C-alpha cells in the first residue's frame, strides 16, 4: 500500500509533463531567470528563447503592484496577478504563483484572461496550444456563436422596424386614395398650429367638398365613384407642394393644410387651380362625367391664438358660403361670416 501524500510532500514531475498539464507555466529561478516555460508561453514570448531570460525583463507586473526583484514577486504568492509582455504585442495575462521549497524558485501559471481573442490572433494559436481542461476554446466558440445569433436578432429588429413603419403609414393613410386620413390631419394640424403659435410661420386651411359627386355615384355606381375619388386625389397632389398636407376626411370631403401660405391672393390662386383640375372632364368606364368642388379657406394669421376646432369650423362656414354662392368657387373666411347652424341648407350634392 502506498503512503498517503501529505500537503507539503514534494511531487516530482518532468518539465515536459508539467508543460503538457500547464502549457503556460513559468519556472523562475532564485536569480530571477526563467528556468523553464510551458510550450504555449514559449511560443507567445518567441521568437527569442525565453529560457535563461530575466523574468522581469520580459514581463511587467501591473497588479496588484509592480515588482522590481524576485523577492518582491515571491511575496505575491496566492494573489491574483496581472502582467503583460514588455515587448511585441504586449499581450496581457492573468496568473498566480507559488514559491517552491528549498529555495528552488517560483512557479507561475498564466492564462490570457478576457483578452484571449486578441492573443489567439496575435500569436496564431490553435486548440492544440491549450490544455484540454482549458475552456478558452469554448470561450472563442461561444463568442462566435453569440455573434451569429446577434446578427439574426439585428435582422429581426430591422424587419420589425420596417413592419412597424408600414403599419404606422397605414394607420395614417386613407386606403382608397393614399391621402392622409383624419388621424394624420389632426396631427399635421396640431404641428402647424404649434409652429404658427410660436410665430415661426402661418398656414392656410382649406376645406374642399366635391360638387356633383353624388350624381356620379348614383348614375355610374360606387366603382365609378371610387375612380373619381382617386382622380381627385391626383389633382390635389398635383396642385400642392410636398410639405402640404392633403387629407380625405369624409366620403367626398378633403382638408388641406398649406404651411407658409398666408396671402389671400395666392390661396385663391391655388383653390382656382384645384377647382379647374376637378372640372376637367373625366372618363368613367367609357362615359364622360363631370364634377366640381367648393372650397372654404381660412388663414392662421386671422387668429390671435390659432385653434384647430375654430379654424376647421370657420373653413367649414366659408365652404358653406361657397356652396350658397353657386358652387365651383373658393371663399376665404372673414370675421363675422359665421352663419347660424339652423339656417344652413344641406350642402351635399
Amino acid at each position, binding site marked *: 500500500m502506498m503512503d498517503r501524500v501529505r500537503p507539503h510532500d514534494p511531487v516530482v514531475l518532468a518539465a515536459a509533463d508539467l508543460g503538457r498539464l500547464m502549457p503556460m507555466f513559468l519556472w523562475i529561478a532564485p536569480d530571477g531567470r526563467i528556468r523553464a516555460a510551458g510550450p504555449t508561453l514559449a511560443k507567445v514570448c518567441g521568437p527569442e528563447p525565453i529560457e535563461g531570460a530575466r523574468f522581469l525583463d520580459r514581463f511587467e507586473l501591473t497588479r496588484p503592484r509592480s515588482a522590481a526583484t524576485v523577492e518582491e514577486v515571491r511575496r505575491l504568492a496566492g494573489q491574483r496577478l496581472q502582467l503583460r509582455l514588455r515587448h511585441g504585442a504586449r499581450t496581457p495575462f492573468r496568473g498566480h504563483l507559488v514559491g517552491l521549497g528549498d529555495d528552488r524558485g517560483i512557479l507561475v501559471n498564466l492564462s490570457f484572461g478576457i483578452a484571449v481573442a486578441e492573443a*489567439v490572433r496575435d500569436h496564431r494559436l490553435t*486548440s492544440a496550444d491549450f490544455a484540454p481542461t482549458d475552456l478558452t*476554446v469554448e470561450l472563442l466558440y*461561444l463568442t*462566435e456563436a453569440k455573434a451569429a445569433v446577434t446578427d439574426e436578432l439585428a435582422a429581426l429588429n430591422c424587419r420589425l422596424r420596417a413592419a412597424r413603419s408600414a403599419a404606422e403609414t397605414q394607420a395614417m393613410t386613407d386606403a382608397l386614395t393614399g391621402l392622409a386620413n383624419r388621424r394624420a390631419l389632426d396631427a399635421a394640424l396640431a404641428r402647424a398650429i404649434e409652429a404658427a403659435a410660436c410665430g415661426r410661420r402661418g398656414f392656410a386651411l382649406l376645406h374642399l367638398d366635391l360638387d356633383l359627386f353624388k350624381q356620379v355615384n348614383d348614375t355610374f355606381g360606387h366603382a365609378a365613384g371610387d375612380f373619381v375619388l382617386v382622380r381627385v386625389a391626383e389633382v390635389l397632389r398635383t396642385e400642392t407642394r410636398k410639405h402640404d398636407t392633403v387629407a380625405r376626411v369624409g366620403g367626398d370631403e378633403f382638408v388641406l393644410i398649406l404651411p407658409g401660405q398666408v396671402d389671400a391672393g395666392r390661396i385663391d390662386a391655388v383653390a382656382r387651380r384645384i377647382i379647374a383640375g376637378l372640372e376637367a372632364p373625366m372618363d368613367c368606364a367609357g362615359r364622360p362625367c363631370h364634377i366640381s368642388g367648393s372650397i372654404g379657406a381660412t388663414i392662421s394669421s386671422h387668429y390671435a391664438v390659432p385653434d384647430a376646432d375654430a379654424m376647421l369650423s370657420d373653413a367649414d362656414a366659408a365652404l358653406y358660403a361657397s356652396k350658397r354662392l353657386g358652387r365651383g368657387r373658393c371663399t376665404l373666411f372673414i370675421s363675422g361670416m359665421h352663419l347660424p347652424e339652423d339656417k344652413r341648407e344641406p350642402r351635399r350634392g
Partner: protein
Amino acid sequence: MHGLVNRSIECFLRDTYGPGIWAGVAVDAGLDPQGFEALELYDDAVTDAVLSAAMRRLDKPREALLEDLGIYLVGLEPLRRLLRFGGESYEDFLHSLDELPDRVRLAVADLHLPELALEGIGPSRYRLCCAGTQPGFGAVFAGILRAMADDYGALALIEPGEVSGEVETVGIELLDSFFAAGRDFDLALPETR
C-alpha cells in the same frame, strides 16, 4: 421545431433551388413566403409540411434532401467555423460530436438537437447515433459528416444507417485522416468579417 432549424431549411431551399421554389414550397405548406423567424419556436408539423412540399416539388426523396441540407450548412462559413471548433483533426471532430448538443445550447438555450453518441465499432470505424426529437437528423448529420471530412481533408465513407425506433445511425469509415490539405481554420476569426 426551433426557428433556426426551419430557417436553415428555408435558406437551403432558397439558395440552392431559387426563390421561386421556396415561394412554391411556402404556399404548399401554408406559410408566409416571408419565411421563418430564426428565434421563434414552431410546431413540428410545420417543418414536416415544408419538407414534404419540397420533396414533391423537387421530386427528391426525404433522405437525399436532408443530406443535401447538411452539406449546405457546412458551406455556411460561420457554421463551418463553429463545427471546426470541435477539434484539430477529423477524428477529434468526430469525438467532439457528443458535446455538440450542449455546445449548441450554450449559444441558443432553447435549441435542442438530438442526443448524439459516437460508438467505435472497429478499427477506424464508427457509428453516430442520433436519438430523439424529430426523425431526419440522421440524414442531416450524414451530410454534415461528409462535408466536414472534405473540410478537414480526411477521406471517409459515410453511410446513413437504418432507423431503429427513435434512433437513427450514420456509419463512418475513416480511411485516411490526412488524405488532402483540407481548408484553413484559424481559432481567431479573420478580421475581414
